[in-house]
């Protein structure tokens, strides 16, 4: 199976026509500040720019990408910037639901394994002393509800069941699945808008922490 059947998962591709009259040289010049960031290496051969990022700062506007290729080719109406960017964060987010589903399965398996031991210990729990809980007169006067009497039928057992619940793992698996879809769409749009702004020369100033 060729990689490009699945590499859309962590690759963002796109193209942008250059401004009328803008040369490839000028375009790369305008995009250059994006690749002059900590942890970024870049090399340019002719009309192709290749970059890689390692341990890039969270404040880097292309932080989500770890590498990529930008190329300027002639289109029907003029030069066009084509880009193909790779993101380990996108791949990670795509795989994260599987990891959390595995955690859920592990929780279920441990719960099953523990059940016989819990049942054996059940008899001991019945012997637990049932002392009525006190309430301070100040709290009584201020109207706080009186503490409930402890239930004799093993409330601890319910707590144990809760502890072994795989629900939170399922919730996180779903959350990462949604986040992947959001990220795959959002990051593609954001980087396109970033390139467009830089090419037109209307890009934002870097945040203070980076400028310093």
């Amino acid at each position, binding site marked *: 199976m060729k990689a490009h059947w699945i590499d859309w998962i962590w690759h963002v591709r796109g193209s942008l026509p250059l401004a009328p009259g803008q040369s490839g040289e000028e375009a790369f010049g305008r995009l250059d500040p994006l690749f002059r960031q900590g942890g970024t290496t870049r090399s340019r051969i002719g009309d192709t720019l290749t970059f890689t990022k390692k*341990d890039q700062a*969270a404040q880097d506007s292309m932080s989500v990408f770890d590498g990529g290729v930008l190329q300027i080719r002639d289109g029907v109406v003029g030069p066009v910037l084509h880009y193909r960017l790779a993101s380990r964060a996108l791949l990670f987010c795509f795989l994260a639901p599987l990891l*959390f589903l595995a*955690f859920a399965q592990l929780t279920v398996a441990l719960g099953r394994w523990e059940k016989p031991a819990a049942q054996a210990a059940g008899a001991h729990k019945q012997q637990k002393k049932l002392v009525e809980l006190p309430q*301070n007169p100040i709290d009584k006067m201020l109207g706080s*509800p009186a503490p409930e009497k402890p239930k004799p039928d093993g409330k601890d057992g319910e707590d144990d069941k809760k502890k072994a619940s795989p629900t939170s793992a399922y919730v*996180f698996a779903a959350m990462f699945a949604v*986040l992947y879809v959001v990220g795959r769409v959002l990051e593609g749009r954001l980087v396109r808008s970033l390139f467009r702004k830089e090419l037109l020369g209307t890009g934002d100033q870097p*945040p*203070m922490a980076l400028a310093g």
Partner: protein
Amino acid sequence: MEAVRVGKRLIGAQAPVTVGWENIPRVEGGPLKRFVFTWFQPTMLFALILFWYYVPNSIAKTSTAVGIGIGFKVLLLGLEWVNPRHRSWRLTWKELVTDLFYVGLGYTLVRLVNGYIGSGVMTKAVQHAFDWDKFTWFMGMPLLVQAFLISFIFDFGQYWMHRGMHNWYPLWLPHSVHHYITQLNINKGAVGNPVEIFLIGLGVGGFFDFLPRAALLAGAIGMAVSTYQHINVRFNTPRWWRFVFNTTEHHSVHHSQDFEASRSNYSGTYIFIDRMFGTCVDGEAELLGMEGGRRMSIREQMTYPFTEGWKAIKDRFSRPAEVMPAE
């Protein structure tokens, strides 16, 4: 770089740190915005205390607390959007996903491990080993006193565990990776190696028997104060609050790239513990992290304490024996 002397130490010699409340910016904007961001923190704290004090027993449950905790965090994420403290700390998709991964680990894997060897098990073991019936008087104290004592004892233990992490290399290794964060956002408190998350969770809050409602109140106080350690929101925090409680400002100093500044403000909730032991620095910092702000990947966060620990052990045992100089 101009450093400021605080007690015996020089703060801000390696990276910029603003020292002193008078030098910290205030909330900017219209009267409504300034009103909201001045009164939000105390209002939430007192509202939560009142809620847990008066709520009927049928609602006073851990599941309610978990629900409120999640709702509170979502609300604070909204505030980060409305009134960010620093533009450089803005939450991106990648940062959100990374942070949520650690939050997810806390709710699943770490919780699973904690069920076997965590603080709850340790507390039960200690309670079984002694005749704790002698301490049932604790339950007879006013609820708020119980709640304060539970949270204070826990925070006191956490203060020393945290200070220990900054002073003893084997404990520093699992904690160090948390200091590679370069911005503060709501879920950044969860970022770190799971070993550290487990260690910091070990506290001595519950050796006494206490009323369930007192524990819920203690949890609410902790949540309504310590959540602000990691947040990108500018508040006009009241004077009395920042004297008693930890704030974003204090914790940003703790995460500063300046080494001396990072060795301050160890408590999670009660900053007066730092004041008691001379480790409090009132101020704030924007440039955070280690190694000049290098962002550490999740993979490295998971392995770093072990690889660095292995290197340290190898260095120690492979040192050549000292050669005596020839006479």
